[in-house]
């Protein structure tokens, strides 16, 4: 049954890609959950991660899995800088101001990237062999991306659950006034959460390069901004863990529908997968407006 083999293969691939989607959306959800700010400049941070991976690999021969930590540190630093330069002034500001500001930050990063590295599409190939899982061949590099995503998400989850600072962030997400009454420095939690959110996003950009062989360019982020919004809504918007699971679901739907659409004659499946994914989003939101895994969003 070649069709089922193809479908199964695509679903496996979808799950792997989904883990990266999930990781790339966690930062967006974390920032929204804590600061109630929608970072519409989300994609360009993924682009920065992709360039980090590219330069680390081509200049120093450093494997992308190692670059993740470099990107995380860069992202954290950048997150703090942007928070204290811009975001700090926008807490409790009207939505239009925060949307404009984060949009502007995104464009600013893109143009800096274009200025420094040019508008060309770049890519690199990190070939460390494939594994045959019976139905399809999967490159080890993608399996490493899958494992890295899960490890990072799990470590972050444990940090949130087991540490005092993690508990303080959860408290601010649930009720910032209540957190202040407990003596939590809410301003510091805002800064930290924003930095972690950007750090995660930049780190996920490293993993994205393992799925776009020649797609690294200053404007590559847009696609991920769009997908991240869908995934974040699916996951209930304010929950990084919801976003991670929703990433899987999105990856499965996107890749599963690719196989199914290929059966219809005269249809170009690639452009339609997004149609299917977004239609499904609409249906899910009609049935459960708080998102698939969403709790009590006020």
């Amino acid at each position, binding site marked *: 049954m070649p069709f089922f083999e193809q479908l199964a293969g695509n679903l496996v691939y979808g799950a792997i890609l989904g883990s990266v989607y999930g990781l790339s959306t966690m930062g967006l959800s974390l920032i929204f959950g804590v600061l109630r700010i929608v970072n519409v400049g989300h994609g360009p941070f993924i682009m920065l991660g992709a360039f980090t991976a590219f330069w680390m690999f081509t200049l120093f021969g450093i494997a992308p899995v190692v670059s993740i930590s470099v990107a995380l540190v860069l992202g954290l630093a950048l997150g703090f800088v942007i928070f204290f330069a811009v975001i700090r002034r926008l807490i409790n500001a009207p939505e239009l101001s925060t949307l404009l500001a984060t949009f502007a930050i995104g464009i600013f990063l893109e143009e800096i990237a274009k200025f420094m590295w040019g508008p060309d599409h770049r890519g690199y190939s990190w070939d460390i062999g494939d594994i045959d899982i019976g139905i399809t061949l999967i490159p080890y590099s993608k399996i490493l991306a899958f494992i890295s995503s899960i490890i990072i998400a799990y470590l972050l989850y444990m940090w949130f659950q087991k540490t005092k600072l993690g508990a303080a962030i959860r408290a601010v997400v649930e009720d910032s006034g209540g957190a202040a*009454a407990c*003596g939590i420095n809410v301003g510091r939690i805002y800064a930290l959460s924003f930095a972690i959110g950007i750090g995660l996003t930049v780190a996920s950009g490293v993993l994205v390069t393992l799925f776009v062989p020649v797609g690294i360019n200053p404007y590559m982020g847009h696609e991920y901004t769009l997908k991240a919004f869908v995934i974040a809504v699916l996951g209930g918007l304010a929950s990084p863990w919801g976003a991670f699971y929703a990433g899987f679901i999105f990856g499965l739907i996107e890749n599963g529908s690719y196989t199914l659409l290929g059966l219809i004659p005269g249809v170009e499946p690639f452009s339609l997968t997004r149609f299917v994914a977004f239609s499904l989003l609409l249906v899910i939101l009609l049935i459960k407006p708080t998102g698939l895994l969403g709790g009590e969003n006020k």
Partner: protein
Amino acid sequence: MLKVEGLESGYGTMQVLWGADLEVKKGTITTVLGPNGAGKSTLLNTIFGLVKPWNGRIILNGEDVTFDPPHDKVEKGLTIVLEGRHLFPSMTVRENLILGAYTDRAMEKLESSLELVYSLFPVLKERAEQMAGTLSGGEQQMLAIARSLMTNPDIVLMDEPSQGLAPKLVMEVFDTITKLKNEGLTILLVEQNVFASLEISDYAYVLNEGRIVLGGTIDEVKDSEEIKKVYLGL
């Protein structure tokens, strides 16, 4: 213990407090009375620092804390029970209480605070592993008060603690506040429920249109002309 002088604040360009003065003595319950919109909640939120003071001074234990952010005030022994409880609904009762002991000041006393809280509110011990959001209204109010005690405070600001509760529970909340006073706590209370709060208080102030128009011991305030004017428009 707490002294407020000429406090002014507001939101955006709208001024709400126009120079409020009051003093809270150690070990007493002091009530701020006033009609809706008088600025009672704004007064407490400004003292705590959630609303920035525009002018005036706030002195806590002899130290000027006017522009201290809220978390510094908690470290110095001041906390607030906000109007509408502001719990962490998808955390357990226990987690809510532990978060109350977030500051260094509170961490030192974590065990004894927990013991005190559980002895005051046995129901919270029974429901320690239950999500705070699943508690009844009365239990949530108890948890909000309990969480404020976990900060190991000298003085607690309470904003409408009896709001939205059934009459029987309202009396329970007022009994609790009296018990807290007997434990040595100082309380600054804002209440809609005038008669019950006068019943338990030692001092009272009347706030009207952002200004303190009257202050004194309970007996002085109770029989004054001012309070009739403010509440009854006489």
